[in-house]
Structures are given as C-alpha cells and as structure tokens.
C-alpha cells in the first residue's frame, strides 16, 4: 500500500525538497534518488548512506462555511464583520430551553456539494453531539454528524503543473471520505496582557460542511492544488464562497511519513493555515520536520501543531494537550434527516419539507472541469490556458467577451489575455472587475492588430496607454502617437533600399549565404520607421531586393 502511495505521489518534487532541506550535500545520494523516483510500485532499495527514502502522507480536513442567510439551527443572520454578539440568538448563546431547528438551505448546500464530489448521498443521516469545553462553545458541545454523515465516498480530481512550467499538467485524484453538516463555534480574542479571552458568538452556529479527504496526497503542492479545485467547485455551486481570508474555508492538514513498505507513521495535525500558499508551506515544513526528527532518532508525537506564518514553521499547540474524549452521543432533539429522490418522493408531503436529491442533481451548474473542457473545445485553447482562465475571477467572461467582439482567432486572443492583461492586473493587484481596460477596448485594439494597421509592439504600447484609463479609444491613441504601420509600399521600399545601401558588409554576407544577417537589416528598417513597419513585409521586400 505504501508503494502504491509512492506511485500515486510526487516523488520527483519530494526528491528536490529533501535534497535541499535536510542539510548538507550527500555525494552518495544520487544513486539512491534515481532508485526512489524510478520505482513505481516496486520496493525501493535502501540508499548507500543507510537511509531509506521517505514517503510523506497528507490528509486534509476542510471546513467550508455554508453560504446562507441564516445559521444552521437558528434564525440569526450569517454575516462577516458585524458588531460583536449582534448576530446571536438565544439558541446560539445556549440559553436553557432553546432547541435546534434545521435550515433547509444548509441541507441543500451539503447535498449539492456531495453530488459535485461524486459522493453517495445518505438518504438517512443522523446528528450527534461532540463534547468539549471552550469559551467560544457556549453549549459545551457541537452538533455534528459523526455516525452517519450526509454524504460519503466521493472523489475530487485536480491538476498539477509538473516542474513549475505551465506546459505539462497531470491530473490526480483524492478520495473524499465524507461530508458532514456541523455547527461553527464562536470567535475568541485572546488578551494576554489582561489574562482574559473576549468571546464573540456571531459565528457560533453558522453552518459548516466538513469535507474529509483521505490521505492520498504527498506534498504541499498537491494539498494546495486539491484545495484550490475544491474552492472553485464550492464557488461555482454557490454552496460556499470559500474565501480563506475571511475564514469561510479552513484547512487542517494531517501529516505523517514512513518508509516504503512499512506501516504509516504517527501523524500530526497542523492548524492555523490561512491561505493556499501557507498550506503548501506548512505541509512541506511538517514533512521535513518529521523526517529530521526521525532520522535523528527521535519520535513523532500524535499532537496538534499550529502553523506560524511569520516563522514559516509549525509549533505545538498548548491548548490541545492530552487526548480529547469527545463523548459522542446522539443529538436527542433532532430526529434523523431524511432525503428523497424521484422514486421515494412521498405523495402528500409539503414541498417545503422535502429535499429531493434528483431535483438538486438536475440543477447542478457546470463544474470547473466541465467548463474548462468546453473552453478548450470551443476556442481551441490549451488546457493550461483554461486553468489560468478559471483561476482568476471574471477572466473567462472577459476572454469570451473579447472573442465575441474581435476577428482575431481565440488562440491568439488568449495570449493577449494571459500574457498582457493578466500580468498588468497582477502587477497592480487588481481584479478583472477593476480592470481599467474593458473587454470592448481590448477587442478594438486586437482588431487594429488583426487588420495589420499596427504592429504587435505598437499594440503593447497602446495597451499601456489604455491602462491609464484616460478614456481614449485605441484608434485615438494610435493616431496621437503615430503608431500606424506604414501602408505605403513605395515608402517602405525606399527605406529598405536606403538600409541596403548603407550596409555593404551585411549585404555581402547575406549574398554569400549567411541568411541570419537579414535579421539585422530588418531591425535597422524597424528602427528607421520607428517600429511602424510590418516585419514580415519588410523581410519580403529585402529578400526581393537582395536577390535582384
């Protein structure tokens, strides 16, 4: 099984990280690495230095806040950044005599997510209480689904770029163990100076979907890619806005290492990861830390660690000392949650009380993977391009709008979108919505280029001007800066002749057979025309003249 994990995993990436990380060049390691990375399913031999290679194992527990108006079991509002304790009902504050009432929208969100992740939806699921004491959990227990969750046994496919180039992508799959509905806790603000904790219960009781991923990943890059794809899926479904920075998507990583062929090692849980970048860093750091510890003869404790983003390392979490006994018990105030499909739909039941799995299935939007495939098919762009388009909010729409309004082929348009527009947006930290260059202006510009009225270099200059957002059209800018290509053939011929006349040596070299020197002449013509000559045409003219 361990070998299968290695085969599924990213041996190549891991080899690099360990070589640079664990300290000191190892002259004997080359042979060892070659053996490790080539073995796919075979037992990996022990290296010369006596150290067998390590197989890291990464599993994820992801909590996604459900996008709903009100909370999971109460009618108080779900909203980010409201005055403290203003979105709290008596139930959320756990006052005696209050009871949970399940929010239908939360059930639908969980079913949608389960279906999108290829899960089996449990038509009967149960609620349980998970007990522990903490100031932000006023009831002393969290209502969750421990015995029978709402969805089980799914899968998530995601893609990785090999070797940091966007040229080759590989698809991987991670199994989804289950998805369960549960309550969020409140927020604690620790005031160490006054030795107290301030508690805000606005978040207490908000609906969460916990997505448990099996330990099928082997490094930080895979973990981050899987979470990114899940994020896109959730956002497409609308079941969660999944913004990590606002705490709508929280990831805990379970990390362990073992030698191939041996049982899994002791795992640690890493919490306090606030972004995809930190997720990759935290996982990779923890893998390295465990390897170092084990190679120095130490042991790994089954503990919970927090990721310190400033130091880039994981540290033990004080509060989680000792094994927790959650004393799970059935939630006595909630009967089982029954879901229906087209076959089992009861005849005389109030529609509002029925959640129909098939009805939800029919209304699922296109998942990101489907959208990407459609983009590739419809526009003839590369898969990597489709990933880049979906990765940036609003970029796909922008691209499609430009394509609609221009004669330029989509395959060429995509270059301008990804290499020019996107890089400007990134440089200025703007979203597509905030772009000073609209899709209309962009389409106009590309049309000028397509009609060969300006050169590619000139187009880039025009784009830079458009970016200033002064309200000028591309045509106006071209006229203003005199960037039009010289259309007059005679004028071009004259300039070409002048260049030829002035470069005797180069002309001789070309006539002697050194055709590369032609590029220098083309360059000189470009300089003479201040970039306003079409290089292809110039090349033709020069070749014609030189052959005379």
């Amino acid at each position, binding site marked *: 099984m361990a070998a299968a994990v290695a085969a599924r995993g990213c041996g190549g990436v891991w080899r690099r990280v360990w070589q640079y990380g664990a300290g000191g060049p190892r002259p004997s390691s080359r042979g060892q690495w070659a053996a490790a990375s080539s073995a796919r399913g075979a037992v990996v031999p022990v290296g010369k230095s006596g150290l067998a290679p390590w197989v890291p194992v990464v599993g994820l527990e992801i909590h996604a806040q459900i996008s709903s108006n009100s909370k999971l079991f109460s009618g108080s509002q779900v909203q980010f950044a409201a005055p403290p304790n203003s979105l709290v009902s008596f139930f959320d504050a756990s006052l005696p005599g209050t009871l949970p009432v399940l929010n239908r929208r939360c059930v639908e969100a969980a079913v949608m997510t389960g279906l999108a992740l290829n899960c089996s939806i449990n038509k009967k699921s149960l609620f349980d209480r998970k007990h522990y004491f903490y100031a932000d959990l006023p009831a002393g227990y969290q209502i969750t689904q421990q015995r029978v969750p709402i969805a089980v046994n799914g899968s998530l496919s995601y893609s990785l770029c090999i070797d940091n180039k966007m040229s080759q992508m590989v698809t991987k799959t991670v199994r989804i163990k289950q998805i369960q509905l549960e309550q969020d806790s409140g927020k604690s603000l620790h005031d160490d100076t006054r030795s107290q904790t301030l508690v805000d219960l606005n978040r207490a009781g908000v609906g969460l979907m916990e997505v448990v991923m099996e330990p099928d990943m082997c490094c930080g890059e895979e973990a981050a890619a899987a979470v990114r794809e899940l994020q896109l899926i959730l956002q497409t479904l609308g079941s969660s806005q999944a913004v990590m920075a606002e705490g709508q998507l929280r990831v805990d990583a379970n990390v362990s290492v073992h030698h191939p062929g041996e049982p899994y090692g002791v795992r640690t849980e890493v919490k306090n990861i606030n972004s995809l970048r930190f997720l990759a860093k935290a996982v990779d750091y923890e893998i390295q830390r465990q390897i170092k510890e084990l190679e120095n003869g130490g042991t790994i404790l089954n503990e919970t660690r927090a990721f310190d983003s400033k130091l880039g390392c994981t540290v033990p979490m004080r509060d989680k000392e000792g094994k927790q006994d959650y004393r799970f018990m059935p939630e006595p105030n909630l009967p089982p949650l*029954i879901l229906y499909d087209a076959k089992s739909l009861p005849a005389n039941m109030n529609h509002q009380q029925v959640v129909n799995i098939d009805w939800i299935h029919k209304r699922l939007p296109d998942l990101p993977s489907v959208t990407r495939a459609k983009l590739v098919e419809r526009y003839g762009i590369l898969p990597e391009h489709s990933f880049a388009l979906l990765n940036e909010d609003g970029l796909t729409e922008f691209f499609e709008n430009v394509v609609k309004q221009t004669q330029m082929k989509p395959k060429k348009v995509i270059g301008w979108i990804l290499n020019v527009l996107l890089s400007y947006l990134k440089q200025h930290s703007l979203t597509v919505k905030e772009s000073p260059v609209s899709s209309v202006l962009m389409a106009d510009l590309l049309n000028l280029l397509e009609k060969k009225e300006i050169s590619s270099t000139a187009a880039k200059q025009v784009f830079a001007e458009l970016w200033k957002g002064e309200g000028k059209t591309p045509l106006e800018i071209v006229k203003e800066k005199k960037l039009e290509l010289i259309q007059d053939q005679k004028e071009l011929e004259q300039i070409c002749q002048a260049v030829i006349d002035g470069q005797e040596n180069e002309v001789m070299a070309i006539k002697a057979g050194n055709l590369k020197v032609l590029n220098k002449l083309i360059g000189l013509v470009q300089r003479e025309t201040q970039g306003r000559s079409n290089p292809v045409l110039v090349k033709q003219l020069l070749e014609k003249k030189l052959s005379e």
Partner: protein
Amino acid sequence: MRLLSVARCLRSGGLLLPPVPPGRAALSVGRHDQQQQQPPPQPAVTVEVLDHLEQLALVDFRDAEGVERLRKAIQFADLLHQVNTDGVEPMDSVLEDRCLYLREDDVTEGNCTNELLKNAREKVEEYFVAPPGNIPLPKLEERETFLKGS
C-alpha cells in the same frame, strides 16, 4: 452550573455510565459492549478514573460520599445489562420516527446584544469575557479540592 447538575444526577442515580475495563480511564458511549446478559464484574472506581472524569466533565466529586454516589450510579446503570438486546436496533430518542422539520433560510432572530450581555458577569465592549484559553485542571497531586472532604 454544570457542577450542580451533575451532582443532582448522581444523587438520583440517573447518570448512565458504561462499565470501565480495569486499568483504563477512557469512557465512551459505545454499543459494542452492551450485548451481555449478566452484569460484568464491578471494576474499581479508581483514583485515575475519578481524575479523568473530573478533567473531562469538570465535575468535583469532593468527598467519599460523592464517590460512593458514583459507584451506586454505575451499579444502577449496570442493570441494563440484564436486558437482551440481540438484534434490536438502538433507539436514539422517542422522537426518532418523527419528521425532522426544515426551516426556511430567513433571518428571524438576533440583534439582542444587550439582552444577552445582561447574563454576563464581566463584559468588555459587547464581548463576553472568559478566562484565557483553556486552563487544564492542575495535576492530581496539586489539586486542592480533590476528595477534599474524605
């Protein structure tokens, strides 16, 4: 508040605690060992068990009388083992065959900060105030109240 309610439960013998295998302090509500017909031999309610319970449930057993109440409660609960439950599905609650009511996703509550804060002993600018983090109970040797009265 929790302390009092547990004490009340113990007194009435209504607290359900499955038998603890000798030497193991962890307790959990599980189904796997409930299929016996005779009550199993009474395991000792050891100091470790008491300590573990106090940590988990923040209960203060206080004195020998409290511990005796606990033993009696366990004995009482063990009577359940005399019932043959082979092939019987466990019941979660008497309401488990009722329909689970689904509420529409409307905002109908909240906005009662002042009312809620009335219950708070201490508050800071509309936040509830609690002691820092989770202070674990001091170790057995250091605890003043453990079995204080005995």
